């Protein structure tokens, strides 16, 4: 436990430490207690408006076709249930009480003193979801979680831990949402994910915050030998700002990671979306794919690959569309090779939709709106599977609106 005293000391020291990127926030201007409690013993108790909010971030309110559901509103867990016993789903605090070994996974990847947000999350003793797939198990359906902002001016601090034991396979869908009427708020989220030997984690996160919400996630993923991490990050709706830079450490031979980022910066939004892969073991592989659109906001797409071990291979693809003169796209690819036998490459392009593509479709009879919509849909389609049809429909609707507004 002395470990915790040390962490506490570090956190206290970092309370004023600004983050490396993004606008800075005075956290004491936010409150931590909810206006009212949201507790759902059963998913049926959820009101219709909240149900729709959940659906729009890929969370199925009935819990059907999901092996478990956890909902966190502001700073407390509103619901947690399981329909399959091949996976474990509980709150981070409960898991901490339950397992002696818990501290082996607690603040082991994300440094508490990275910045004021990690420090705050530590000192608040942030709760969150704890998901563990036991060795050699495979859940037939994804686990779903929702992180919801439910009170005005709240600062939500979340600490999630995911452990995929050896040769297990796990799918997670996390939706981030804001309840109607919540204007200004901030979300701070710590996620530490452990993918053991031969295990696979397929993680999809869908954001639907709102115009005045600031978001500062801090994520580190540790992948062991032969492990696979697939990450889909989708943010197509308005948000004030997101600044994130998830880091994947490939720590065992043959470990693999693919991170897909699909995002739209609406007017007034600033999306600073990075991802970083450390190739720390031989024969590791990674692909970072970023497809972003600005309709007036600012996108900073950072992609970073650091090659520290031989026979590793990485490719980084950063494509940004500018659909409005007010919009900004900045792509910052970084490749670093620290050994000789390594292959890292990148491909970055920002600009408007190619006119010849739009006209090609128009020559087939599509209107300009239809043509642009079709190209945008294709641009954003990185083959993410398992989204509920309601979300697919909502995504299509968003794309349609983006297409229309760009003409």
């Amino acid at each position, binding site marked *: 436990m002395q470990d915790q005293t040390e962490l506490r000391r570090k956190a206290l020291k970092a309370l004023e430490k600004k983050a490396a990127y993004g606008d800075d926030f005075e956290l004491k201007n936010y409150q931590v207690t909810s206006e009212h409690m949201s507790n759902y013993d059963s998913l049926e108790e959820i009101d219709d408006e909240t149900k729709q909010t959940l659906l729009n971030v890929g969370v199925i309110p009935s819990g059907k076709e999901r092996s478990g559901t956890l909902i966190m509103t502001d700073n407390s867990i509103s619901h947690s249930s399981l329909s399959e016993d091949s996976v474990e789903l509980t709150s981070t605090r409960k898991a901490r009480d339950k397992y002696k070994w818990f501290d082996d996974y607690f603040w082991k990847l994300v440094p508490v003193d990275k910045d004021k947000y990690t420090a705050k999350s530590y000192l608040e003793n942030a709760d969150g979801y704890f998901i563990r797939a036991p060795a050699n198990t495979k859940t037939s359906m994804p686990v779903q979680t929702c992180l919801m902002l439910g009170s005005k001016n709240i600062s939500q601090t979340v600490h999630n831990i995911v452990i995929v034991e050896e040769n297990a396979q796990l799918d997670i869908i996390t939706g981030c949402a804001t309840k109607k009427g919540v204007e200004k708020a901030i979300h701070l989220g710590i996620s530490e994910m452990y993918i053991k030997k031969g295990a696979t984690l397929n993680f999809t996160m869908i954001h639907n915050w709102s115009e005045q919400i600031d978001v500062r996630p801090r994520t580190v993923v540790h992948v062991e030998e032969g492990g696979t991490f697939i990450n889909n990050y989708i943010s197509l709706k308005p948000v004030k700002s997101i600044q994130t830079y998830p880091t994947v450490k490939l720590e065992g031979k043959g470990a693999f990671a693919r991170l897909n980022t699909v995002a739209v910066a609406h007017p007034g939004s600033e999306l600073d979306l990075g991802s970083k892969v450390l190739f720390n073991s031989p024969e590791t592989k990674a692909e970072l794919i970023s497809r972003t659109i600005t309709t007036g906001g600012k996108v900073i797409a950072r992609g970073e690959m650091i090659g520290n071990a031989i026979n590793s291979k990485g490719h980084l693809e950063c494509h940004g569309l500018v659909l409005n003169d007010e919009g900004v796209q900045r792509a910052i690819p970084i490749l670093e090779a620290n050994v000789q036998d390594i292959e890292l490459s990148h491909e970055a392009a920002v600009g408007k939709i190619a006119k*010849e593509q739009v006209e090609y479709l*128009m020559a087939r009879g599509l209107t*300009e709106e239809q043509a642009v919509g079709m*190209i945008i849909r*294709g*641009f954003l389609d990185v083959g993410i599977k398992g989204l509920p049809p309601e979300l697919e429909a909502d995504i299509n609707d968003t794309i349609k609106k983006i297409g229309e507004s760009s003409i």
Partner: protein
Amino acid sequence: MLELENLSIEVGGKQILTNINLSVESGYTNVLFGPNGAGKSALLMSIMGFSGYKITNGKIYFKGEDITDLPLNERAERGLGIMGQRPPNMVGVKLKDLLEITAEECIDLDELVEELNMSSFLERDINVGFSGGEIKRSELLQLAAQAPSFYLLDEPESGVDLVNISQIGMMINKLLHGDIKCAGRRRKEGNSGLVITHTGQILDYIEADKGYILCNGQIMCSGNPRDLLNEIKTKGYQECVTCKIRQS
């Protein structure tokens, strides 16, 4: 059906076509010959309405209507369709998805796909990584699904292997001359077309009515397409220029 009147075109600030007068009567298939760089593709692209081809003078009439300033999709709506020489890579746009939107109701898409051997391409992004011959088949499939009444075909046979040539040739013949499946579209005259060819191979499959030779951005002469082709084969295009000078 299609009438070009004193048409002049600029591409990238450069005059490419000058005072083109050309017409295709309803039910006719006319052929455009000419050396590389003559401006044949530019002419087809301008007729379709691509914005890179700026009309600096003249008019385009289609079915009696002035379409010079119409956007591409409205030309398509009126029955124009193009099989381009160098279509762009449509990253993210699957062939199937486009066909589903553009195919006319009366079209049996499955049958068309089968006929052109394109089933394995439906899930692929249009033109991305397609071979030369595959692009031609994909263009033709899209065009057939669209079922236009006027076909602008830019070197439909070039780069196509001998087996596929007959497939493509027969399909084009069917599209131009009959066996039109869409009720109400079946005009007594059949459809019309303007076809670019270098080798004339496509003429083994379709009945061409009239030929034009385009050289240095100008129509040099017109006549029976087979006669013109023979002239070109024996004398080359240099003769056209000299002939034109003699005429004037």
